């Protein structure tokens, strides 16, 4: 079994799975139960000057009947007394010395930062996480994402904390910026030991169409919240990867954003995260999900022949290149396996209306492009009568087929096919060799 233990800028953890700062890491009893079930670390619900919260606070996007594809919250930082939190942190660290307890912090003035950093360290924090990311409520008070969006302020506040802290400090970034490298590099300048991202995305989750009031409802009103959950994972992966491949950033990253499974976690690790943080998935299904995360990741590492989770970290980053360096001569085309095709024709309609009109129905009338293959280079303005294909009476007649000359290999049909392995993309051997857009620019042979 592969070694899952990590050391993130000095914060040691038996595995890379941490609870993100949020409701699942709100109090000591919760964190200890989570550790018992298998979580390697927890980032405590953000401490600061105590606040008052509203009711209700959460709303979600359902997709095709699945609850919580995306979650939106308007909850603020901890609304429990600081003293209560510190007592619990102390108890947790005393009982779980080998687990990582990172304390998330958010205050305003330099004096406040000094005091809260010291009290956290006194309570036994293994590390600190500076919440420069929260995009709702706290930012209106000049904290959270309003710091993360101002690189100079971010650098300055980080450097204050670095002066006060004797334990590793992570800066948690907001995704609500134009370019994630700007706050990332600002944190490095401030001396941060590590980065964690993404915090939630500023959002309005939706409205109740019966009352036309926003969700989550606080009486008749609501406010913009922070969006997270499985839907935000691709955004988070990009930001993590962008920082991981940035030459100016050489500090470890704790990846956050829509992680629900070991596969999600493995992707974050492969794109440069050292630890991963989970919140929404736990809110949805409880701490117990970590059992499969540990088990699945461990099996995966074994299958990949990796002895330690550290071998996976950053492995996919070199594959992330600029568009201009992609090989223009690489080509795949769609293949439909008639034996496993169930005849739903989702590939046909997707290609016809949403792509390049190169999948045809066996059983007419077929409206796909029937002219000479030109990949749409010549004008197409006539709506032609659909062509009735003759079909083999022995076959299931609703199985579509691909015009391989016309197929441009976009992948859409592959994505919509409901049967695993039925519609695949096959690589077409290329004798011409690799050539990128940037190569063409250099050779001045653009088109």
């Amino acid at each position, binding site marked *: 079994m592969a070694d899952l233990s990590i050391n993130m800028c000095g914060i040691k953890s038996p595995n890379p799975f941490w609870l993100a700062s949020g409701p699942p890491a709100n109090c000591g009893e919760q964190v200890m139960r989570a550790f018992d079930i298998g979580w390697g670390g927890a980032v405590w619900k953000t401490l600061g000057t105590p606040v008052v919260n509203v009711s209700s606070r959460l709303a979600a996007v359902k997709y095709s*009947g699945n609850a919580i594809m995306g979650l939106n919250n308007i909850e603020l930082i901890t609304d429990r007394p600081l003293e209560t939190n510190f007592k619990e942190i102390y108890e947790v660290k005393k009982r779980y010395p080998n687990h990582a307890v990172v304390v998330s912090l958010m205050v305003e003035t330099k004096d406040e930062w000094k005091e809260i950093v010291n009290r956290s360290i006194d309570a036994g924090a293994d590390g600190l996480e500076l919440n420069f990311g929260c995009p709702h409520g706290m930012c209106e008070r000049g904290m959270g994402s309003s710091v993360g969006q101002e690189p100079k302020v971010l650098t300055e506040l980080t450097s204050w904390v670095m002066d006060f802290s004797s334990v590793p400090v992570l800066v948690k970034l907001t995704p609500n910026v134009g370019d994630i490298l700007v706050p990332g590099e600002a944190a490095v300048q401030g001396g941060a030991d590590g980065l964690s991202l993404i915090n939630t995305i500023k959002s309005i989750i939706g409205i109740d169409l019966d009352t036309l009031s926003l969700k989550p409802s606080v009486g008749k009103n609501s406010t913009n919240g922070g969006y997270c959950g499985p839907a935000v994972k691709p955004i988070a992966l990009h930001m993590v990867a962008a920082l991981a491949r940035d030459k100016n950033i050489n500090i470890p990253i704790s990846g956050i954003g829509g992680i629900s499974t070991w596969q999600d976690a493995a992707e974050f690790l492969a794109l440069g995260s050292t630890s991963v943080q989970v919140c929404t998935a736990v809110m949805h299904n409880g701490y117990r999900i970590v059992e499969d995360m540990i088990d699945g990741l461990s099996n995966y590492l074994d299958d990949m022949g990796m002895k330690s989770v550290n071998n996976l970290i950053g492995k996919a980053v070199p594959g992330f290149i600029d568009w201009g360096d992609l090989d223009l001569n690489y080509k795949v085309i769609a293949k439909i396996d008639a034996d496993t095709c169930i005849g*739903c024709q*989702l590939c*046909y309609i997707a290609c016809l209306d949403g792509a390049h009109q190169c999948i045809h129905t066996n059983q007419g009338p077929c409206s796909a492009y029937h002219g000479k293959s030109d990949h749409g280079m010549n004008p197409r303005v006539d709506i032609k009568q659909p062509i009735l294909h003759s079909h083999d009476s022995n076959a299931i007649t*609703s199985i579509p087929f691909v015009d391989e000359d016309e197929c441009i290999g976009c992948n859409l049909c592959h994505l919509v096919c409901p*049967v695993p392995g039925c519609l695949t993309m096959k690589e077409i051997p290329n004798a011409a060799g690799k050539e990128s857009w940037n190569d063409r620019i250099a050779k001045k042979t653009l088109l």
Partner: protein
Amino acid sequence: MTPELQQQFQLSKTRLESDFPESKPLFSESEALIEANRCLFCYDAPCTKACPADIDISSFIKKIKTGNIRGAATTIFSSNMMGISTSQVCPVEELCAGACVFLEYNQSPINIGRLQRYAVEKALQMEKSSGRKLFPSHKNRSQKVALIGAGPASLACASYLALEGIHPIIFEKNNLPGGLNLTGIAPYKFKSEAALSEINWLLDHGIELKTGVEIGRDIHIKSLIEEYDAVFIGSGLGRDKFLNIPGKSGTNVWGATALIKKIKNEVDFNLSRSFNSAVIIGGGNTAIDIARELAMLNIAEVNILYRRTEDVMRGYAHEISGARKHGVRLIENITPSEIMLENGKVSGLRAEHSVTGESINYNCDMVIFAIGQEKQASHFSEYLKYDDSGCILVDDKTCQTDHPKIYAGGDSINGGKEVVNAAADGRKAAFAMLKSWDIQPNLDSKKKGSYHG
């Protein structure tokens, strides 16, 4: 609807039918959403191709998914005005669901019938509570259409006409409308109250109903053809057929549809106290229906005797397996030769094994013939053409007969099929009539589900 009719629509609770549980109850909202979300939303979906009424099934299921229940119901009704009864009565296993792509994928097909039931019943509840009709009424036009028989074919035809402002008048010889939808559907599938409430809803769109009026007896056909702009024949089939064997007139020898009608509609009718063993002769779905009903009514022994073998019988596989779960037995290769009577009452049945020729006696105290129904005695023979089996010949696409003003649909043209076939015929005929009068239907058959009210 007239108050007298409303009075008639009140069915007594002391009917045997009331005791049957529903085999496919209404989905809850969450059940419907879970099932709807399984649907792949196929393009050119095989379920729709398998639907005799051409309902755009994947579209209405998509609308259930998005919470557009009125839209889902409109999609259904615009293709099949009998959407309420067919959602429960249709043999979906043989039609839409039997064509579901999931069967190619070793998964259970989408439960289309129950989703349809959910959509139409919910939409009708919403119609009631909001007071906003799914299909608002239209300006009245001058045309009048006479429809003969108030079964599914005529009801469907009349509904589509009424939605376009045509005045349809249905003549029904019985006291209650509905035809086999009221009297002939197995009570675990669809009950008479539900049939009447569906009819009630349909009539409210502007259909006039005259019950107790028999064409050819009370109204002359010639005057009907002269007075009306078109005539639709939806008179269905006649009495049950009987084998011409000794003992067929004995007490406790029944025709299947007649007995089903008694179970469904007759007040204080009772069977289980007097009978222990029933023999059903036939191999179609009506034979299976009555067998299952009798078994569910606690008749100890219920045997279907079929002259050939199960693999060639007309009854559906899912029906016979459903009946077997209630203890019904199917006995193959049996040809009845005599019903034995004691004091005029059934005491047994003598039969011959059609392969071995062996003579077999069955003890039973009731015999039911389920070998089909007679054709209706026709008063139209001078106007229409019939095929060899006595079905009225019509044009496939329009349901128009040889006489340009006369259309026909349902069992009278197909010899006995499903409710959905009758409903589809009624729709075809209605749209053909409209076309013959150059009326562009509000309910555009090309854009299914869109109703330009």
